[in-house]
């Protein structure tokens, strides 16, 4: 007798995926025991047999080997249909699966890597997406452990067959590691952390050219790990010894800054369910009617304090991966900037708030009209502008943070960031996102220091343009008052830790001795 596939609740409507697999299993059960019939199934029978075998694998742990042998014997499509069924289960019903079925699922996913089943990389990506950031429940840590093991155990095969999936894993585990480091240690978590570190360090040390495919968000994730000794040395090499990575296309960290990160990566840290709800919110819900939806979303996904780091991932998702059509932008649907305002207000921890702001402005720092997408920078701009009438403190704190980033994010590349931010502002005006920057520079309620800072940025633009012609000094800008006592320490704390690893060579030398 097969066990259940999913936990059925009393008022839950029948689950279509579960029922289609179960029906196939019930129908074909007699044929699932050896000796297996030798007849060749037609297409429909083949699909049905795949469903039945899958149900057997997931619900009859005692017969797993038999079912898998059966699958190997009948397969004619490179496991493509079987893998697509698995993908569907992981995407749609993973959370509802009974524990034993989850175990079986991970086991059979491994098998699909071994046989190089068509689409196994997508299956692994789906599993990565089911690991929830900020979720320290046993089940979630278990999944994390199992999946990082797959990536370590199958390293050679993955590297040869689907190297890009390794970059997805790196993005995921760097991000999860930051959460896991905040967890008070126990034996299990410690082991998990070690595996995550082992995988990430191996990637960075052995396959750096592959890691570069992630682009600039790789640096953003590494910032959260500066405090780990394993990553501190990586930071030192990134900043001072790029040659250590033996990657010809990497001679300076700015080369990574210039690579925009594909939206594929920001999707990795959002479960499919979160993605569905966020996209619904930003596609169908009218501005003014969002309150209940926001509460439901928060209750489901952000309910515990440790979940708060997810907000950073959500902001990154909204900036980079959810780009509404012009029709929606011109409609009365909740705009992205308003959702960002809600998310920003939901932060209770200062380091999360700093990371959320960094997530909003990250693409500003390196903005290049030719390579970057204006949609990534639009929400932060509109949030600053639309906050002026009622929430000027939001405008202040965002603009202040932006300048702090320009000054402190990477002191060896201030010019790059000043140029990035300047071209971000310029393109936002050119493309009509805002009519003119007067809305900020002539805003009565905006602090004179910030207005002055903006004016200097814009006047510096001429200097940058002329730089090629005459290598004169750029007016060096430093506005220490921004980092003065009136600045909330949370912001400076956030930023100074960002730039800490490679501020001065001498301090790095000291660090090494420590």
């Amino acid at each position, binding site marked *: 007798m097969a066990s259940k596939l999913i936990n059925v609740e009393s*008022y839950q409507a029948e689950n279509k995926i579960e029922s289609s697999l179960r029906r196939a299993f019930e129908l074909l059960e007699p044929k699932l025991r050896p000796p297996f019939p030798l007849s060749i199934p037609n297409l429909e029978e083949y699909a049905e047999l795949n469903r039945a075998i899958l149900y057997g694998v997931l619900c009859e742990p005692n017969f797993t080997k038999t079912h898998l042998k059966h699958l190997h014997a009948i397969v004619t499509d490179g496991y493509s249909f079987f893998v697509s069924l698995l993908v569907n289960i992981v995407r749609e019903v993973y959370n509802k699966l009974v524990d034993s079925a989850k175990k079986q699922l991970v086991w059979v996913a491994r098998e699909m890597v071994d046989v190089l089943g068509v689409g196994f990389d997508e299956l692994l990506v789906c599993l990565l997406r089911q690991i929830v950031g900020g979720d320290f429940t046993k089940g979630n840590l278990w999944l994390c452990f199992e999946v990082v093991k797959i990536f370590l155990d199958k390293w050679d095969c993955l590297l040869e067959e689907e190297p890009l999936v390794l970059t997805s894993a790196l993005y995921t585990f760097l991000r999860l590691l930051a959460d896991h480091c905040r967890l008070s240690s126990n034996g299990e978590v410690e082991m998990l952390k070690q595996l995550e570190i082992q995988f990430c360090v191996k990637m960075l040390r052995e396959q750096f050219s592959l890691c570069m495919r992630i682009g600039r968000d790789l640096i953003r994730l590494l910032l959260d790990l500066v405090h780990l000794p394993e990553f501190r040395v990586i930071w030192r090499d990134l900043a001072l010894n790029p040659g250590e990575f033996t990657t010809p296309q990497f001679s300076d960290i700015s080369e990574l800054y210039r690579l925009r990160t594909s939206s594929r990566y920001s999707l990795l840290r959002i479960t499919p369910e979160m993605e569905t709800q966020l996209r619904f919110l930003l596609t169908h819900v009218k501005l003014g009617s969002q309150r209940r939806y926001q509460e439901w979303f928060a209750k489901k996904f952000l309910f515990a304090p440790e979940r708060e780091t997810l907000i950073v991932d959500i902001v990154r998702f909204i900036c980079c991966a959810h780009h509404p059509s012009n029709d929606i932008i011109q409609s009365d649907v909740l705009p992205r900037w308003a959702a960002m305002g809600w998310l920003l207000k939901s932060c209770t921890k200062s380091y999360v708030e700093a990371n959320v702001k960094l997530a909003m402005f990250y693409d500003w720092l390196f903005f290049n009209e030719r390579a970057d997408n204006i949609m990534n920078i639009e929400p932060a701009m509109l949030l600053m502008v639309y906050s002026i009438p009622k929430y000027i403190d939001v405008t202040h704190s965002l603009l202040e943070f932006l300048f702090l980033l320009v000054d402190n994010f990477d002191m060896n590349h201030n010019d790059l960031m000043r140029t990035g931010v300047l071209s971000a502002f310029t393109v936002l005006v050119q493309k009509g996102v805002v009519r003119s920057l007067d809305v900020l520079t002539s805003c009565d309620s905006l602090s004179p220091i910030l207005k002055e800072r903006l004016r200097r940025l814009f006047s510096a633009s001429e200097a940058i343009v002329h730089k090629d012609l005459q290598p004169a000094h750029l007016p060096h800008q430093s506005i220490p008052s921004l980092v003065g006592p009136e600045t909330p320490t949370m912001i400076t704390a956030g930023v100074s830790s960002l730039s800490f690893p490679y501020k001065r060579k001498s301090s790095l030398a000291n660090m090494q001795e420590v």
Partner: protein
Amino acid sequence: MQFLKDIVPAAQNNINTKFILLDKGRITMEGQNKTCLALVADETAAVHFQLWGDECDYFESGDIIHLIDGIFSYNRSSSLVLRAGRRGKIEKVGEFTMVFVETPNMSEIRWVPDPNNPKIYVQESIIAPHSRMFTPML
């Protein structure tokens, strides 16, 4: 499947519809049974829904619910409510992804028998544009 704006009070279990649960009131006892009033809505209208027994604990705001063979009528405390009743049932079919309006609220309408056909109720007047029990969240 009916829209909520089209439901009319009647002593029949014939309403099939889908809605999202917006808010739940306090659970109270009616004899041996738990009961709880809720605000539900679809894209056309809202209405008060009476949850019964275990339904009160199971369903939460944000749930998308399919009502099969429900009834829209006056309950024991003379309020006009939609409910599954003894012959109907409700099932959770999803979460979150449904748009809704909070006005009109079909429970906040005064209905009177149709002068031409006293078996049918027709709308006489609007008592309140929104639920007076569950105020809109702005």
